[in-house]
């Protein structure tokens, strides 16, 4: 796409598209030449509403604002089905990020700001920059709520990385390097994440990202001009605008074409974590200035749609119009076309709406105290416009008005009604136990070494897990990352992100329910009370009735599960058109983050076994269904049912686990997920090694005979549940607490010998560890 005017800077910018004079074919051709993704009917409705030929700037503005990425036109109606309110919800999904109530400390109420997004297409095209700017963008979403950014997490779905898949391997490495380069540099610890490898992501990886911030609830800054904000100054902060990221919003809203991927590289933004680090710290200073003066302001991240998208949404959310002068924008290059300045997605920028009286002081903080212009070429805080009572959105360039549209028409909701095909759930239900000619030993090692089960350490050791010094449980040392964000307080939060693409391929609705259940289960396993959720809906094309049906089923699954667990979604994102132009879509991939609360961090439970002579209990039921399990994948069992989720029973189990944790009865705990119970037990023993202790062994003396579901299902099935370690001295109280709960069973004891003993088998922990710890080392050396 053209980014520069061809000769002099004084070239007239009023170029327009004579929509009314063109027939559909000619209009499509012209729109394609301009790189517009807007449909013919959308172009005609714009021209009709404006009553004239829309200018190029206006066309690119609508192209961004009405893109799937900005407008959620295919999904907004569905998202209304999700629960979004509850006792711990401080701010639901209406602004750049949601907020959950963490607790009180010294008379102040603290909230955790949480945002969840995807950067899938950029990461496929330029993995390093795409993943890095994914972190950069989500961090701004959290920052602009007035929060200190305290953690990030990243759920990843890569293609097959077997030898020969050089491109997929390079993408996986580039993504991990990009996340590390950005997150490490800005000093935000990487607290949680998950990672799957699956050939169905060969052409379209998923790079989701979650960021968390800490805010006093009395000091939240909203993503809107305040009610009394007429004539508030729009102050642009950050990197000088350049030609990068032009067309990013529309790029994220079409299916990727490998041939075109190269030419789309210009639509991806360029990260600058070093500048971001300074902008974050300068913004914290501005937050305290505003607090001291009692000034209410608006603050918003520049993401999709650039200056135009951000200023239009910031002002219209407050009930105002906006006037922006593109000539006052600090630019990195001369002769940038006005549409590039207006909608380009240069990174590391935010927009304040401030009363005139404070603007100079804020400019001084960014430009002098934190010397942005010295940190990056022409970076600064600069006035670019104001909020107006007139309900118009106006852009000027070289003294001319290049855009003048009703602001509600630009930012108002556009919705598409689309045909839906209901997905078919797998029908086969086995009545018999699994019969299999492979030995338990063979399968156990194969599962431990499976890419979706084996140790993630080779990957996450690229990420700084502990910068800021507030990490209580770093990634990999328990089911959820735990952090104590407030100095001097015992309050802590836990975070887990989950979603199993193997289930997504089989049963879209249940995939969503399992994503919710697993994220909650992980948070419960560290002894934290779940308080809220976010979701990122990664699906194929909404224009394909079957793929759109998967999205509809996914939203229904998310809604059902969250209601059952009594939780709300406070933030989220929808990423559609994930797949290849051949029509091959990714598996339905709803990814859920769960935030949990620990009122006393000394009660948090970790994963490694703690002592010999403890009793191990399984809290949960085993089902015969193997759909979505690693075992089914290894044995190529195609048409299996996915385990059902009995929410009422699970809620009772979780309540019991949390009660036991709060009384200090759980020495360790670990949930059952990928690979099943035996993997869970092995990992609890491996955890001792990370603690620099000799591994404690396990004798599954109580295991045989209790399972109605069959041996393989019991050992490797993935129906959920949590294994807990209880010291001998505590079992009376533990069993008293369990009361009438039938799904709590003792399955074994911990032993001094470094063995996992079951019936006639006795696996050396060291052997199991060898299978588990190494497979990803060759990919992430």
């Amino acid at each position: 796409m053209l980014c520069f005017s061809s000769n002099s800077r004084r070239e007239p910018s009023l170029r327009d598209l004579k929509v009314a004079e063109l027939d559909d074919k000619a209009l499509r051709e012209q729109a394609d030449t301009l790189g517009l993704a807007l449909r013919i009917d959308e172009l005609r409705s714009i021209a009709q509403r404006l009553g004239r030929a829309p200018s190029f700037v206006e066309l690119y503005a609508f192209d961004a604002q009405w893109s799937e990425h900005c407008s959620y036109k295919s999904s907004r109606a569905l998202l209304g089905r999700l629960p979004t309110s509850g006792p711990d919800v401080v701010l639901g999904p209406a602004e750049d990020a949601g907020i959950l109530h963490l607790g009180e400390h010294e008379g102040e109420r603290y909230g955790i700001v949480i945002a969840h997004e995807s950067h899938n297409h950029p990461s496929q095209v330029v993995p390093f920059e795409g993943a890095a700017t994914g972190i950069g963008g989500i961090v701004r979403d959290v920052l602009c709520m007035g929060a200190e950014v305290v953690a990030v997490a990243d759920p990843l779905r890569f293609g097959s990385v077997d030898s020969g898949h050089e491109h997929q391997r390079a993408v996986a490495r580039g993504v991990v390097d990009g996340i590390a380069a950005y997150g490490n540099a800005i000093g935000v610890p990487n607290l949680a994440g998950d990672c799957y490898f699956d050939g169905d992501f060969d052409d379209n990886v998923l790079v989701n990202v979650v960021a968390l911030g800490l805010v006093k609830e009395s000091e939240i800054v909203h993503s809107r001009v305040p009610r009394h904000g007429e004539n508030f100054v729009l102050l642009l902060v950050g990197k000088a605008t350049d030609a990068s990221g032009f067309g990013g919003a529309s790029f994220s809203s079409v299916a990727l074409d490998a041939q075109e991927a190269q030419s789309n590289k210009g639509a991806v933004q360029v990260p600058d974590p070093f500048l971001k680090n300074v902008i974050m710290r300068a913004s914290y200073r501005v937050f305290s200035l505003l607090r001291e003066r009692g000034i209410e302001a608006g603050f918003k991240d520049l993401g999709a749609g650039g200056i135009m998208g951000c200023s239009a949404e910031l002002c219209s959310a407050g009930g105002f119009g906006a006037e922006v002068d593109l000539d006052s924008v600090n630019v990195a290059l001369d002769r940038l076309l006005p549409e590039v300045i207006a909608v380009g997605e240069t990174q590391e920028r935010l927009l304040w709406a401030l009363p005139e009286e404070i603007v100079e002081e804020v400019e001084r903080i960014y430009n002098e105290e934190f010397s942005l212009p010295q940190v990056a070429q022409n970076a600064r805080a600069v006035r670019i416009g104001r909020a107006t009572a007139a309900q118009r959105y106006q852009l000027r360039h070289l003294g001319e008005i290049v855009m003048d549209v009703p602001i509600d028409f630009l930012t108002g909701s556009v919705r598409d009604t689309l045909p839906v095909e209901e997905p078919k759930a797998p029908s086969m239900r086995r009545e018999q136990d699994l019969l299999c000619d492979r030995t338990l030993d063979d399968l156990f090692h194969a599962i431990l070494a499976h890419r979706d089960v084996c140790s993630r350490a080779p990957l996450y050791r690229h990420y700084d897990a502990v910068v800021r010094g507030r990490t209580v449980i770093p990634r990999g040392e328990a089911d959820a990352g735990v952090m104590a964000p407030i100095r001097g307080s015992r309050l802590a939060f836990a975070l887990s992100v989950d979603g199993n693409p193997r289930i997504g391929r089989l049963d879209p609705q249940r995939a969503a329910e399992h994503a919710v259940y697993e994220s909650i289960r992980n948070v419960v396993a560290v002894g934290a009370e779940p308080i809220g959720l976010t979701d990122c809906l990664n699906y194929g094309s909404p224009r394909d009735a079957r793929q759109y049906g998967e999205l509809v089923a996914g939203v229904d699954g998310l809604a059902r599960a969250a209601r059952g667990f009594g939780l709300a979604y406070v933030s989220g994102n929808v990423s559609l058109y994930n797949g290849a132009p051949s029509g091959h879509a990714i598996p339905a991939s709803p990814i859920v983050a769960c935030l949990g609360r620990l009122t006393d961090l000394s009660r948090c439970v970790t994963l490694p076994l703690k002592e010999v002579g403890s009793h191990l209990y399984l809290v949960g039921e085993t089902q015969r269904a193997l759909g979505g399990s690693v075992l089914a994948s290894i044995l190529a069992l195609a048409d299996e049912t996915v385990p059902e989720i009995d929410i009422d029973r699970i809620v009772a189990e979780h309540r019991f686990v949390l009660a036991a944790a709060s009384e200090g009865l759980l020495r360790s705990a670990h949930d059952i997920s990928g690979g099943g119970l035996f993997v869970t037990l092995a990992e609890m023993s491996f955890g001792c090694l990370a603690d620099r202790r000799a591994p404690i062994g396990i004798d599954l003396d109580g295991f045989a005979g209790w399972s109605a579901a069959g041996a393989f299902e019991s050992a490797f099935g993935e129906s959920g549940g949590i294994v807990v370690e209880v010291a001998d001295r505590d079992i009376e109280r533990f069993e008293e607490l369990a009361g009438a709960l039938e799904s709590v069973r003792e399955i074994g004891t911990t032993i001094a010998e470094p063995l996992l003993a079951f019936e006639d088998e006795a696996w050396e922990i060291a052997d199991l560890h060898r299978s588990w710890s190494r497979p990803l080392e060759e990919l992430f050396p």
Partner: protein
Amino acid sequence: MKARVAVLVFPGTNSEEETRDLLVDCGADARIVHWSEAASLAYYDAFVLPGGFAYEDRIRAGAIAAHDAMLDAVIEGAQAGKFVMGICNGAQILLEAGLAPGTGEIRRPTAAFTHNAQGHFICERVLLRRTVAATRCAIAAALPEHLLIPAWAAHAQGRLAAAPAHLDELERDGFIVFRYADAAGATDAHLAPQGSAHGAAALTNREGNVLAIMPHPERDAWNFNHLDRREGSDPLAPSGGSVLFKSFVTALERM
């Protein structure tokens, strides 16, 4: 009166708050001093350079920060005998500034903490052991013999490199204050997770008033983030790696 410690912040520094907090909890009057406030540095008794990516690690890590105006005050202070501790990126800056090991001219480095053997950033738990006499480095003097200090290696450039003859000199004259250790206290060179020469984790200068330490003791320094926290202990109390900070503050108070 409490010792006044400046925690220096360059553009790109990111570990200033926990470093300041731990100094405060160990009894110092520690304050964060920003790069635009370099003029105020003369007021302080000691300097701590925390971790991060000052000036984006352009050229070599720490090379540009070593020429920042803030380093003028640090160099002057160090030469006058004030204590200077650099952690991670701060350690890299001290090497680039020629303050550690300090055997050459100022701002003409003789050794560097450079790219890890594996070629990328690593984040892992480590143990450190002082392998010189208590009197060799005043900052580490109050540590008990044979104590293993928990810390986090979190860097892309933490491998000590220098000319072989210079490395021998650093070894012989006790410049290598801390080495990577295993749980039994062994300090074989291969225990350095990034391939650091002689298993070195920290260097001092000839006078022993400067300490450049690559791993972060402040990230395993209160019970809540300490790996071996005892059950029932106050989660907010200093522990683990805080012993090094305590030793630093104790030495300052005795000056």
